C-alpha cells in the first residue's frame, strides 16, 4: 500500500511540475501576478510529493519488501540498516528518484526563501525548474519506475552489489547530486534572465549563493567519490580519468568558472553574457554526465545496467534543454545591455583569464571523453584515451592557471598594478621555485610535472596567505588592532583565500604521489617487508564471519625503526548472495601520508599475496578539496551574499575598505 502511495505521489509531482512549468510563465507574459505566483506553492507541493515517494521507496527497502522489483534486485534481508537505506539510491531507478528529489528541493528553496526576488524573475525561475522536473519525472515514470511490483515475490533479495555496501554509497551520491543538480537552479536563473531579457548585478547577487552551494557540494562529492574509489578498489588509485569521473569534473570546471565570473558581474556589472553562457554550460555538463552514466554508451565502473530506451529518452531531454537554452541564448543575449569596462590588467582581466583556462580545460576533458566514442562510431576502431592525454592537456592548462591564481586575488578591480603585485608575490614565487628545483634535482629523470606542481602548490598557498597578510598588516600596529582588522575582513575574502589554499594543498598531495613507494610481495607470517620509510610485519591470517559476508583478515603491524606504530587489518570479503568478493584495504594514516595494504589470495599456509604502498601526503588531495568547500561555505556566510539581502551593509565593516 505504501509503495502505491509513493507511486501515486510521484505521478502527482509530475502533474504539479507541469503546472509549475506552464502557469507562471503564462502569468508573466500576461502580467497577471496571481498566475505568476502559482509556481511557489507548486514547487513546495512538488517537493513534498517527491519526498513522500522517496520515503515510500526507502520504507520498502528498510522493511525488505521483496514484492517490489527494485528492492528484490538490490537488497537483502541480512544487510545492515544503513546499507538497506543507502541501497535506495544504489541502483538506477532509486538514484533517479534521489536526483529529482534534490531538483525539487532546490525549487522549493527558491520558492520558500526567495522572498527578496523580483516577482517576474522568481516566476520564470520556477517555471524553468518546473520544466526540468517534469522531464525527469516523466523519464522515471515511463522508463524507470522504482515502484514496479514483482509477482510472485521472492523470499530473499539479490542483495546490493558488494562494492556498494560501503559508507561511501551513503555519502557520495547525495553530495554529488546536490552539486550536479544544484546547477539546475543556476541554469533556471540564466534561462529566466534570458526570457525576461533583463540582467543586472542584482541577478548576480541572487544567483551566487545557489551557485556556491552547488559548487561546494560538487567539490565534496567528487572528493568523496575519489576517496571511496581509493580505499575500495584495492590498488590505491584515486582518479582514473574514467568517462564518468570526467562527467563530474566538467560541470565542476564550468561551475568554478561561473562562481568566479558571477563575482565579476556582481561587483563590476561586467561579463554578463559570458556568465549566462557559463550557467547554461555548467548544467549542460551535468545533463551530459547523467546521459553518459545511464545510457550505456560508455563502459565504466559506474555504468548502470543499460537499457537503450532510457538512453534515447535522456538524449531527448539533453537535446531539448541544451538546445533550447542555447537557442534562447542566441536569440536574447545580443539584447542584453553591455556591462562595465575594465583594463586588461585588473582583477576582472585575471578572472577572464581564469575563465578562459577553465573552459579550455573543460573542453579538453570533453574531447578526451567523447573522442573514443566518436572514433568508434566513425571507423570502428576502439581506443582508450587515458591519463597521459589528460595530464598533457588538462594538467598543463591547470598548472598555468595555478600560476595566475595569486595574481587574480591580489590585483585591484578595474585597473591593477601588475608590478606591485608581482613584488608582493615575489617571496612566494621564490620559495616555490626553490622547492621545484630541489625536488627536480632529487627526482632526476623522474616525472617533470611533479616538481613543478609542488612548487606551484607552495606558491599558491603562500600567495593566498600574503594577500590576507597584506590586507591586515600595517607597520607598527599592535597585535590587537591587527586581530580586529583580520576579523573585520569580509568573510568572502577569507573564503576565497581558503579555497585557493585548498587548491594548493590538493596540488601538493597530487605532486607527492611521485614520491611514493610500491611493492608487491608474498608475505609470510612473521616476515617483515619494508615500504617507504616503514616496515610491515604480517602477524596473522584469520577467517572471520560478517553479517552477510565472510572474510579473510590479515593483521599486520607497521613499524618505524623497530617500534610498532600502528596495526592494520586488510581483508578480502566474500558475499555469498552474489558470489562476489571485494577487497578491503588496510590503511594507516601516518601524519598526512598513508600506508596502504591490500591482500590477494592465500597462496599457502601462512602466506598471502599483498600489495603495499607508501603514499606520502596523499590525504592532502582530499583535505584540499575540503578546504575549497569550506572556503566556498565561508563566502556563502558573508552577509552581503545572503539570499535577498537588499544591499551590501556598509556599517559593519571596519576600516578595511578604506585601506584597500
Amino acid at each position: 500500500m505504501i509503495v502505491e502511495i509513493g507511486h501515486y505521489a510521484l505521478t502527482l509531482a509530475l502533474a504539479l511540475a507541469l503546472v509549475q512549468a506552464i502557469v507562471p510563465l503564462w502569468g508573466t507574459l500576461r502580467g497577471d501576478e496571481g498566475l505568476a505566483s502559482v509556481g511557489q506553492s507548486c514547487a513546495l507541493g512538488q517537493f513534498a510529493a517527491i519526498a513522500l515517494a522517496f520515503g515510500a521507496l526507502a520504507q520498502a527497502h528498510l522493511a525488505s519488501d521483496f514484492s517490489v522489483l527494485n528492492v528484490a534486485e538490490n537488497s537483502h534481508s541480512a544487510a545492515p540498516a544503513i546499507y538497506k537505506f543507502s541501497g535506495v539510491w544504489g541502483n538506477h531507478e532509486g538514484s533517479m528518484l534521489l536526483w529529482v528529489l534534490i531538483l525539487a528541493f532546490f525549487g522549493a528553496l527558491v520558492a520558500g526563501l526567495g522572498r527578496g526576488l523580483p516577482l517576474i524573475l522568481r516566476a520564470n525561475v520556477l517555471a524553468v525548474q518546473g520544466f526540468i522536473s517534469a522531464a525527469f519525472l516523466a523519464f522515471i515514470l515511463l522508463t524507470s519506475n522504482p515502484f514496479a511490483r514483482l509477482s510472485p515475490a521472492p523470499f530473499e533479495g539479490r542483495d546490493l552489489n558488494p562494492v556498494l555496501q560501503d559508507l561511501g554509497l551513503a555519502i557520495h551520491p547525495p553530495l554529488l547530486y546536490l552539486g550536479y543538480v544544484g546547477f539546475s537552479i543556476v541554469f533556471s536563473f540564466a534561462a529566466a534572465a534570458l526570457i525576461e531579457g533583463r540582467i543586472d548585478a542584482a541577478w548576480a547577487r541572487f544567483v551566487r549563493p545557489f551557485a556556491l552551494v552547488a559548487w561546494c557540494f560538487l567539490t565534496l562529492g567528487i572528493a568523496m567519490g575519489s576517496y571511496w574509489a581509493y580505499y575500495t578498489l584495492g590498488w590505491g588509485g584515486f582518479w582514473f580519468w574514467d568517462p564518468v569521473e570526467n562527467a563530474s569534473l566538467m560541470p565542476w570546471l564550468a561551475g568554478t568558472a561561473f562562481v568566479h565570473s558571477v563575482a565579476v558581474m556582481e561587483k563590476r556589472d561586467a561579463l554578463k553574457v559570458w556568465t549566462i553562457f557559463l550557467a547554461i554550460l555548467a548544467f549542460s555538463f551535468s545533463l551530459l554526465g547523467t546521459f553518459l552514466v545511464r545510457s550505456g554508451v560508455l563502459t565504466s565502473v559506474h555504468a548502470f545496467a543499460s537499457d537503450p530506451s532510457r538512453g534515447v529518452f535522456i538524449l531527448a531531454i539533453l537535446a531539448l534543454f541544451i538546445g533550447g537554452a542555447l537557442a534562447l541564448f542566441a536569440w536574447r543575449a545580443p539584447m542584453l545591455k553591455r556591462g562595465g569596462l575594465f583594463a586588461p590588467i585588473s582583477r576582472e582581466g585575471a578572472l577572464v583569464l581564469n575563465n578562459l583556462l577553465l573552459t579550455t580545460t573543460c573542453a579538453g576533458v570533453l574531447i578526451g571523453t567523447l573522442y573514443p566514442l566518436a572514433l568508434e562510431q566513425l571507423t570502428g576502431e576502439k581506443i582508450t584515451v587515458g591519463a597521459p592525454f589528460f595530464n598533457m592537456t588538462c594538467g598543463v592548462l591547470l598548472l598555468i592557471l595555478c600560476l595566475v591564481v595569486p595574481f587574480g586575488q591580489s590585483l585591484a578591480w578595474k585597473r591593477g598594478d601588475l608590478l606591485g603585485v608581482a613584488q608582493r608575490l615575489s617571496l612566494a614565487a621564490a620559495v616555490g621555485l626553490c622547492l621545484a628545483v630541489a625536488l627536480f634535482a632529487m627526482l632526476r629523470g623522474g616525472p617533470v610535472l611533479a616538481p613543478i606542481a609542488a612548487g606551484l602548490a607552495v606558491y599558491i598557498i603562500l600567495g593566498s596567505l600574503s594577500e590576507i597578510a597584506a590586507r591586515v598588516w600595517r607597520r607598527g600596529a599592535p597585535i590587537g588592532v591587527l586581530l580586529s582588522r583580520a576579523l573585520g575582513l569580509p568573510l568572502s575574502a577569507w573564503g576565497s583565500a581558503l579555497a585557493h589554499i585548498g587548491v594548493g594543498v590538493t596540488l601538493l598531495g597530487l605532486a607527492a604521489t611521485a614520491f611514493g613507494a610500491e611493492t608487491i610481495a608474498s608475505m609470510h607470517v612473521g616476515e617483515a617487508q619494508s615500504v617507504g620509510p616503514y616496515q610491515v610485519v604480517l602477524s596473522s591470517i584469520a577467517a572471520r564471519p560478517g553479517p552477510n559476508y565472510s572474510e579473510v583478515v590479515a593483521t599486520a603491524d607497521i613499524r618505524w625503526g623497530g617500534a610498532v606504530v600502528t596495526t592494520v587489518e586488510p581483508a578480502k570479503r566474500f558475499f555469498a548472495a552474489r558470489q562476489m568478493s571485494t577487497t578491503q584495504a588496510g590503511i594507516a594514516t601516518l601524519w598526512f601520508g598513508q600506508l596502504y595494504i591490500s591482500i590477494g589470495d592465500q597462496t599457502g599456509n601462512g602466506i598471502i599475496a599483498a600489495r603495499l604502498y607508501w603514499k606520502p601526503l596523499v590525504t592532502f588531495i582530499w583535505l584540499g578539496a575540503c578546504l575549497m568547500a569550506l572556503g566556498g561555505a565561508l563566502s556563502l556566510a558573508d552577509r552581503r551574499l545572503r539570499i535577498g539581502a537588499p544591499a551590501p551593509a556598509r556599517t559593519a565593516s571596519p576600516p578595511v575598505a578604506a585601506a584597500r
Partner: protein
Amino acid sequence: MTRKGRRLTLIGVALAIVAFAAGLALYALSDSIVFFYGPSEVLQKNIAPGTRLRIGGLVKAGSLVKSEEQKAAFTITDNANNVAVTYQGLLPDLFREGQGVIAEGVLEAPGRFRADSVLAKHDERYMPREVVDALKKQGRWQEGESKP
C-alpha cells in the same frame, strides 16, 4: 584603451589559449592513445612487437598458472585465436576463468603479451562491452548467453 582595443586584446588572448590547448591536445592524441583489439585482430593486423595495446576476450578455461612473486600467466581467447598473457601483480577480485577480461600492456611478440594492468568488471551480470563486441565479430556470441 578603447572598448574596441580591449575587446581585441581579449579575443587575442582567448585565441592564443585555445590554439595552445588545441596543439597540446593534438600532440597528446597522436602520442598517448591505446588501441583495443580482440585476440583475432591482434594476429590479423600484424602489430609490431613493442606496441602498447589493450586486449579483451575471455580467460581460457584451465589456462591460469600462478607462480611465485605474484606472477600469473593466462590465455585470452575469443574461442578462435589465443594470446598468451603474463602479468605480475594481484589479479582483480572478479578475475575468473571463462569470464571476460581486459588486459593493458605491451605486445612482446605475435601472440605473446605482457600486461601491466588487468581489468575484470564489478558485476557478475556484466561483461565488458568491448569483449562482447570482439566476440560478436568472431561470430562466437550467442544472444541470451549472458546479459551484457
